[in-house]
């Protein structure tokens, strides 16, 4: 039994994958709570998909994916902001963002179909957690630490603005500045997570653990702790599934993240029924 648990992590490749998964769970769990509470899930998904051309171009040019991803996110954020502004009165904000994001994603796919892309479109779309290098880990850890520090420092303001914007303004806080900060952190987190989970699955780690934790907890600090634990469980579990069932690691992790959310949903429903029955 113990052998079965330890066996996968005998290889350096799996050890790095484990560290990467822990990093993702930490960033996704904490920042994810603000994303879920702030209703930013759709924004997270849009950013992740909209950055695709940046990743493909980086792969084509042979520069680090992190740089391509950063440039891609910047372009995506500008395109989304522009689409939201221009399209608001004509086709509605969400639809305008969807058009912008799909356009960017299509552009990325077009570029990715060129024979010159070395890693192939798969690694970019679905990530390659098993291919995490030392450099990836270091860069990821640095970005994750930055996100964590800012989240701790800005906690009170994030809370006040999320709770009620008008009241926060009366307390001397600029809600727009806090929004911008949260979106910047979101961009950084997507950048960290896209390495491991790829363009399509990155949203799972940013949304699912926090959404599940929200169902199980009643305060923000426990919610964050719970989200990190759930993210670790799904991440490590996904690595086992991938190792023993020979499935893609990113997809296994994303699948378990969704399963965790479904379980949390079921648990909270059962608890509600029991409360109704007993009270």
């Amino acid at each position, binding site marked *: 039994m113990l052998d079965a648990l330890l066996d996968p992590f005998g290889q350096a490749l799996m050890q790095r994958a484990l560290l990467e998964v822990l990093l993702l769970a930490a960033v996704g769990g904490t920042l994810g709570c603000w994303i879920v*509470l702030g209703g930013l899930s759709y924004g997270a998904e849009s950013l992740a998909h909209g950055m695709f051309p940046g990743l493909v171009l980086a792969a084509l040019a042979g520069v680090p994916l992190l740089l391509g991803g950063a440039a891609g996110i910047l372009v995506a954020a500008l395109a989304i902001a522009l689409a939201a502004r221009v399209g608001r009165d004509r086709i509605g904000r969400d639809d305008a963002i969807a058009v912008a994001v799909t356009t960017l994603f299509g552009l990325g796919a077009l570029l990715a179909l060129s024979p010159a892309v070395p890693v192939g479109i798969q690694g970019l779309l679905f990530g390659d957690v098993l291919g995490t290098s030392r450099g990836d880990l270091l860069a990821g850890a640095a970005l994750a630490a930055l996100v964590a520090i800012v989240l701790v*420092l*800005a*906690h*009170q*303001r994030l*809370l*006040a603005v*999320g*709770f*009620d914007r*008008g*009241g*926060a*303004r*009366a*307390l*001397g*806080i600029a809600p727009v500045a806090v929004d911008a900060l949260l979106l910047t952190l979101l961009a950084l987190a997507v950048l960290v997570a896209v390495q491991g989970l790829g363009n399509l699955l990155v949203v799972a780690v940013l949304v699912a653990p926090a959404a599940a934790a*929200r169902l199980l*907890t*009643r*305060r*923000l600090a426990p*919610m964050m702790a719970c989200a990190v634990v759930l993210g670790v469980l799904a991440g490590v579990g996904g690595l086992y599934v991938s190792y023993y069932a020979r499935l893609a690691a990113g997809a296994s992790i994303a699948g378990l993240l969704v399963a965790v959310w479904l379980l949390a949903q079921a648990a909270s429903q059962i608890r509600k029924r029991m409360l109704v029955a007993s009270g």
Partner: protein
Amino acid sequence: MTADRAGGGEDARATPERGSCAHPEPTGPARQLVRAQGLAVAYPGNAPALTDVTFELTKGERIAVLGPNGGGKTTLFRALLGELRPAAGTIELRDRCASVPQTERSRLDFPVSALDVALMGTIPTRAWWRRPSRVDRAAARAALGRVGLTEQVHDTYGELSGGQRQRVLIARALVQDARVLLLDEPFTGLDATSAAGLEVLLRELAAEGRGILIATHDLEQARRWDRVLCLNRRQIAFGVPAQTLDHEVLAATYGGAIVTLPGEPATGVHHAILPPHHHHHEH
């Protein structure tokens, strides 16, 4: 209704300590908290939303701010909070203003306790990188105790009753150590018992030397307070309720959309039905 200093009669000037209220000029500067003179307030890039506002708020005073939606009540509050600059005229503030917003503006599904919300009141006094200190937490607890929520400190905000949530927001304002409280329709959605309790609390807070501006749609309640400020994009009237709230002032304030019901003419109290109130969100 509830025990009230001005309760039971239209003569709100009877109380000795408020004797000067009927005459704006003689009020000593020591008691004055807010003074607005010829104030006009505009949102950036727009024509003034409110003009010609001249009033004062003294310690221990509760002023009802009456007016239709869009009449300038919120605009006045935002000017007093320093969020909007006067387009004309002046505001003199002798003390900090703190706002008590409507409870339905806040997120009831947010995972915060009453203490978490009250603690937000300590944000303005703290450097942005600092976390709440033990002193801050003690102040927040004391403020919650002051509004009668000692038992509910750790309760989830969204699960409190409407009246208790309003008290939490008042506690958040008290934590800011502000002498001037701006309440935005605090009685909306409260049952009779909670409303009566809240009115007692407001009277006590005023008696402690605070000045309170209360935006309200309830004329009957406004008559029991010390003065009324009637706004309809400009100041319609300011003064003691009994002398100020006549039919012309109300018609000008509410633009003729007011229906006066006959009955109880002997008390001098007009019962009025106001148009339904819509909340409009600011961005």
